[in-house]
């Protein structure tokens, strides 16, 4: 085997960048969607309404017992059946990620909500705020502030998980690297490069988390 030739990377930068953009977009949108739906699921589980709480708990436990790759397949084949037309790989993958991550985020958010002292809720109630006002103005802002590090950590895991979208033939960063590796016959260079990029992004994320934790004094 010839020596390393990293020239293959610079020649393919636009293609690689497209893949990375897709990975990042998928991550960002899934984090936002996952937190939004995860918050709703968490509030449902803590609502004290039995049927609502059971439904949310059932959903969370079901999703958490299934491999992500299966969920991606499901939504790829199921969503077009349900709505009657194909929606494309990207949107089906996005929906799969959002619904999958929502289950994990809801557990994080539920713990965050429960970490807010009961006295804070009493204080809000004592001034006449109703249940939703107490949640929205008092509990959730404090819960999210406590949760930011772990939410970011979950985002880093999600970023790595986006490499699974090759199963619905989406061209994320990993898939693109792999295509170049095979067509150019530069497997070692491309997989080292891909690993390096994942490392830089994820490790930067971890540093952000560490600084956030330091700032919070935990």
């Amino acid at each position, binding site marked *: 085997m010839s020596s390393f030739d990293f020239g293959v990377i610079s020649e393919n930068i636009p293609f690689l960048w497209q893949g990375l953009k897709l990975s990042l977009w998928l991550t960002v949108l899934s984090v936002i969607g996952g937190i939004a739906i995860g918050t709703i699921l968490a509030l449902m589980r803590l609502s004290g309404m039995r049927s609502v709480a059971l439904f949310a708990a059932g959903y969370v436990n079901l999703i958490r017992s299934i491999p992500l790759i299966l969920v991606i397949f499901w939504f790829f084949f199921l969503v077009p059946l349900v709505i009657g037309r194909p929606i494309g790989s990207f949107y089906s993958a996005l929906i799969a990620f959002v619904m999958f991550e929502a289950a994990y985020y809801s557990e994080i958010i539920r713990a965050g909500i429960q970490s807010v*002292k009961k*006295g*804070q809720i*009493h*204080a*809000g*109630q*004592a*001034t*006449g*705020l*109703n249940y939703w*006002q107490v949640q929205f*103005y*008092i509990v959730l*802002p*404090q819960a999210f*502030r406590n949760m930011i590090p772990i939410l970011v950590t979950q985002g880093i895991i999600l970023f790595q998980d986006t490499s699974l979208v090759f199963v619905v033939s989406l061209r994320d960063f990993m898939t693109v690297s792999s295509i170049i590796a095979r067509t150019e016959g530069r497997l070692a260079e491309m997989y080292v490069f891909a690993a390096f990029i994942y490392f830089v992004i994820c490790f930067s994320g971890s540093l952000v988390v560490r600084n956030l934790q330091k700032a919070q004094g935990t």
Partner: protein
Amino acid sequence: MINISDVSKWYGDFQVLNSCSTNIEKGEVVVICGPSGSGKSTLIKCVNGLEDVQEGTIHVEGIPVTSKRTNLTKLRSRIGMVFQHFELYPHMTIRENLCLAQQKVLKRSRDEANSKAEMLINRVGLLEHIEKHPGQLSGGQQQRVAICRALAMDPVAMLFDEPTSALDPEMINEVLDVMIELARDGMTMMVVTHEMGFARKVADRVVFMDNGSIVEDRPTNEFFTDPESERARDFLSKILDH
């Protein structure tokens, strides 16, 4: 104004309140004292429905707190409450702490809420701190802010749940001074406290509780000079003799 009648409450098998009854008239200041675990804090939290009761009734201005049909949030907005651990909202400034319920519950405009907040904060001498967060204030300052937050709602009565017991000794008086002023202005107050000096100075009546029961309910002077029960005498000797 506040009418507590035969109230009992259980946590599982453990009875925390045992058929408690008392009345508080408009403008009256009532101190509730007793050993820890005697049910004082629980009783005061039942008055604005933060804790529910299993037996008996509580009425505030004739409205039944203990009825399922009562709009509790509306009732609570008329009763101020001050907590042992202040419970200011840490993610908001002092100003926001004072304005939140004014705007969301009483639907006051931002300007109205702000001027009310400034007026109250100025009265307790903390106007210069109004844009700070609670964490930047001392315990005594935080508790004064918490009193203002309750007063901002123009309550008809104020409940105090051990307002000075989480404070360092040198900060107790700055909080008590605010409460004394409030009492002299004619506010109806229920105060759970171990500060017998405060009780002597401003309370009209002292309610002594032990094991979930109201053991004595007497005019302040009589309570201190001639307690009827052995338990109250014992409590007073322990709390006053040092």
